[in-house]
């Protein structure tokens, strides 16, 4: 079967699953098991479709269509196939995980939740495959709507509703910007097809306008600072199996939109566009990591960390755009490759960490790190999976997060050694920021893992927690294996990603990998071999073992004492350093960053109070408007209704006449256009 047909089949399976889940809603257990397994199957087909598209690039599929301005075209070029593959793998993990995870919602409409989850995945798959902006927008809005219902699933909680409201607000503001961008395109192209967009002749001003509109429109969904405000609340409120999709692949669809419209369809960018992207990338990276550090709600922490990682991805995209604008194919390739690679990696480890946070929530019924602790001994496999995710998040070699950050460094380096004062000054400063963010991200990761899994249990539930159920472990292990594979398999993966970038932006071919090595275009610049590093690192464990054995160290015994040393005082669990006290030195040292937030909050509060004062006035105005405007409007509508009623004579022959009349009108319209 053709890759596109496979993808459609996968979408169909997800759609059927959504409907079946709705029908099975009364049967809790059946609903969650059947829906989870069926979703895994559908995801498997999606993965096959993506793989198929990589080996045999499919021809776009055109479906017949009633509207003249939009053909329903499905296409799977490299970029779309990569996104579809990502969505499918994350869907697979999430579906398997949900089999057990949904068990905690015994009193709730699980079928409805599964309906929205499956519809959400299916819509994302269609979104990345569709080749027409009109349908893109429709799927985009429907996806937002489906995810909105996921956010407000726990609707008895006030914060869920608030988070959902804010999400809806930002998402729609973003969608409005995107819509405007599309209309400017349409204005010149006369058609909503991507192919027509690509060939449209736009003036430089409208090109820049489209770029800005699309950048902020998609940026709102991707969560760039300062448009990230909806993310912490929304991710925290959403059930974790869905939050893992929201934080990973929904973000990926936003980045996809950004790449598709701002780079692919607009063509060669201006240098300052790259500068804008870099600026917001840097802002998101810095603010995201600082705010992540001071959270103690695990899921909010992960959300802020997503802001940071979107910033890193934007640093890659910005570098690529600058390279594109200044006609440096290698910089272009490296920048976009680094961005795509990091997007892929981020999806895996962030998805994994959200599943992990869900597992802790499932057993402990809390997201507060201060109420956890010591879980590595109670939930060993969950701990291992979470540790892999945390290491990847902190870009520790040889995991996947490190490899893609290495590519970002190399892209910035290659771009920064190019001509032009602007790039030579700005890109190395981004390196500085990347280093700072890297060190702080390590602190975030240590705080997350250490707060939850190390030290003594800091609550009753933590002391009695049980290992996660098998299905949840399986979901996490899929993604943990992925994190390892994407890191160690970098030499195999890089050529494919390079192919995607080269294909999407018509670059000359370049080699970035050979054997078990990856390199940034030129081997003299740098070489990296993640598998060799991993082997050598593990091999070097033999040195300390040999030394200890040589000195007879393994002959001595070891014993376990009840409590750690506490200066001779009796130890009690609150003596341990908790998650909230962990970040104290950072808060003191970098107080400026946090003051900024406090100031902004105060500003927002002032705005809120002012709005509150305005409310009585507005209410009066509203009632006045109603009293003045409503009666005539109502009267008009009623009058129109009565007139229209006159058309309904209850005579079948008259209705037939209407049909004939309409048909004739349509025919005239069509022929007059032709």
């Amino acid at each position, binding site marked *: 079967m053709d890759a596109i047909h496979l993808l459609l089949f996968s979408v169909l399976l997800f759609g059927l699953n959504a409907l079946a889940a709705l029908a099975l809603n009364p049967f809790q257990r059946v609903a969650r098991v059947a829906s989870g397994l069926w979703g895994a199957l559908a995801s498997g087909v999606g993965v096959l479709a993506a793989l198929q598209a990589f080996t045999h690039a499919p021809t776009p599929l055109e479906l017949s269509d009633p509207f003249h301005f939009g053909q329903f075209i499905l296409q799977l070029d490299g970029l779309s196939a990569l996104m579809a593959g990502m969505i499918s793998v994350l869907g697979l993990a999430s579906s398997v995980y949900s089999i057990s995870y949904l068990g905690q919602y015994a009193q709730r409409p699980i079928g409805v939740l599964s309906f929205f989850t499956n519809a959400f995945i299916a819509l994302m798959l269609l979104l990345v495959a569709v080749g027409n902006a009109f349908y893109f927008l429709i799927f985009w809005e429907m996806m937002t709507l489906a995810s909105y219902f996921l956010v407000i699933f726990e609707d008895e909680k006030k914060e869920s509703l608030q988070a959902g409201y804010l999400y809806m607000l930002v998402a729609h503001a973003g969608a409005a910007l995107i819509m405007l961008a599309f209309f400017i395109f349409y204005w010149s192209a006369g058609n909503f097809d991507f192919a027509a967009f690509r060939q449209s002749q736009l003036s430089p001003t409208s090109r820049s306008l489209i770029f800005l509109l699309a950048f902020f429109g998609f940026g709102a969904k991707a969560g760039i600072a300062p448009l990230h405000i909806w993310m912490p609340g929304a991710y925290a409120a959403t059930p974790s199996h869905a939050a893992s999709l929201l934080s990973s692949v929904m973000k990926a669809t936003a980045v996809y939109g950004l790449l598709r419209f701002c780079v692919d369809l607009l063509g060669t960018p201006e240098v300052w566009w790259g500068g804008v992207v870099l600026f917001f990338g840097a802002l998101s990276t810095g603010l995201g990591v600082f705010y992540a550090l001071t959270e103690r709600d695990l899921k909010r922490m992960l959300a802020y960390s997503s802001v940071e990682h979107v910033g890193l991805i934007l640093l890659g995209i910005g570098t690529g755009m600058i390279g594109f604008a200044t006609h440096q194919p290698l910089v272009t390739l490296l920048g976009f490759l680094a961005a795509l690679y990091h997007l892929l990696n981020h999806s895996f480890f962030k998805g994994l960490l959200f599943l992990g946070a869900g597992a802790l929530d499932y057993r402990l019924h809390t997201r507060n790190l201060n109420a956890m602790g010591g879980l590595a001994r109670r939930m060993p496999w969950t701990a291992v999976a979470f540790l892999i995710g945390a290491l990847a998040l902190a870009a520790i070699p040889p995991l996947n997060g490190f490899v893609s950050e290495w590519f970002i460094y190399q892209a910035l380096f290659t771009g920064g050694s190019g001509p032009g004062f602007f790039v030579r000054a700005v890109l190395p400063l981004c390196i500085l920021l990347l280093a700072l963010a890297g060190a702080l991200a390590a602190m975030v990761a*240590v705080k997350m893992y250490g707060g939850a899994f190390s030290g003594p249990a800091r609550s009753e539930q933590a002391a009695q927690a049980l290992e996660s159920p098998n299905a949840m472990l399986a979901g996490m292990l899929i993604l943990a294996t992925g994190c390892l594979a994407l890191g160690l398999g970098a030499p195999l993966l890089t050529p494919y990603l390079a192919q995607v970038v080269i294909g999407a932006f018509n670059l000359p071919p370049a080699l970035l990998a050979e054997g078990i090595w990856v390199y940034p275009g030129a081997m003299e610049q740098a070489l990296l071999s993640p598998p060799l590093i991993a082997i050598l690192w593990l091999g070097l464990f033999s040195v300390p073992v040999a030394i200890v054995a040589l000195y*007879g160290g393994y002959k001595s015994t070891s014993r376990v004492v009840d409590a750690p040393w506490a200066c001779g005082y009796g130890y009690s669990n609150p003596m341990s350093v908790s998650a909230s006290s962990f970040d104290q030195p950072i808060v003191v040292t970098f107080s400026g960053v946090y003051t900024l937030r406090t100031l902004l909050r105060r500003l927002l509060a002032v705005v809120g109070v002012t709005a509150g004062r305005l409310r009585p006035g507005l209410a009066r105005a509203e009632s006045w408007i109603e009293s003045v405007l409503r009666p005539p409007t109502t009267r008009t509508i009623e009058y129109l209704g009565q007139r229209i009623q006159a058309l309904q004579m209850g005579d079948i022959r008259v209705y037939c006449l209407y049909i004939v009349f309409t048909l004739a009108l349509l025919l005239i319209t069509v022929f007059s256009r032709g």
Partner: protein
Amino acid sequence: MFSIRLLLMGLLQALALLALAPLLSGFARVWRAKMHNRRGPSLFQNYRDLVKLMKRQEVFSAQASWVFRATPYIVLAAMLLAAAFIPLGITESPLGWMGDLILVIYLFALARFFFALSGLEAGNTFGGIGARRELLMAALVEPVMLLTLFVMALLAGSTHLGVISAKVASGAIPYYTSVWLGMLAFAFAAFVEMGKLPFDLAEAEQELQEGPLAEYSGRSLALMKWGLYLKQAVIVTLFLAVFLPFGSLTPPLPAGWTLVFATLMALAAFLLKVMAFYFIAAVLENAMARVRFLKASAVTWASLGAAMLAFVFYLANV
């Protein structure tokens, strides 16, 4: 690209540095004592401590998980791996064909991640405080190190440590103002990473750098301490390789007895430079008072400033 000769050279160099590290630390201790008008311990006291600790019984708190037990091995292996990347006595990065300076800095991060995590593992208060301080220092110092290294890399056109070292040694990168400033900033960062006053007392437990060690005992403690000695030596070696590679061998190598002689000369030069660095570190440490930890950033901003100046001078091409 794969080269058995370079692989063996790297491993040999890592093991040599491992063997030498306690001696270097002992050297600094002896000089400190002399400046205090104390007699001080023997030059080899660190080795005796390590051997003694190896044989002692290990005590674990019930709160600690496998991460706590595995950390000494993880840290030592990561530091050994980092040691094998750094050009030592020769302007060639032995394992440069599998990683560059970014990898070396992130190997430090790998060691630090587990080092800090082990501080939280046992539930010990000092361990936790040590962990968070360690990570703060990393956040203050790591950007400085990376920026200065990248200025050098931009001058050399490569992030390959061997290439940078060779270009500085051969004079292809002359000592511009930016190189001097970078050297200053990096030396400062290395000094902080070594765990010296005014922020830290590497010898004192319950103190900052050794905070996470509070709960370690027996062979684990020996390995952790050895790992820290090695980390100090690796940082100093990195500094010398990038900023002061003079006296090192440069390929193509001569043959026969000339090679042996040249190698011995290069190693002697390396040892002299390392000892000079440790000596200067000891003097500086003695000349400084202990500073409250949260004031550390005031000093590290200065080093960031130096690194930024190095970058600005690089931009201005002076």
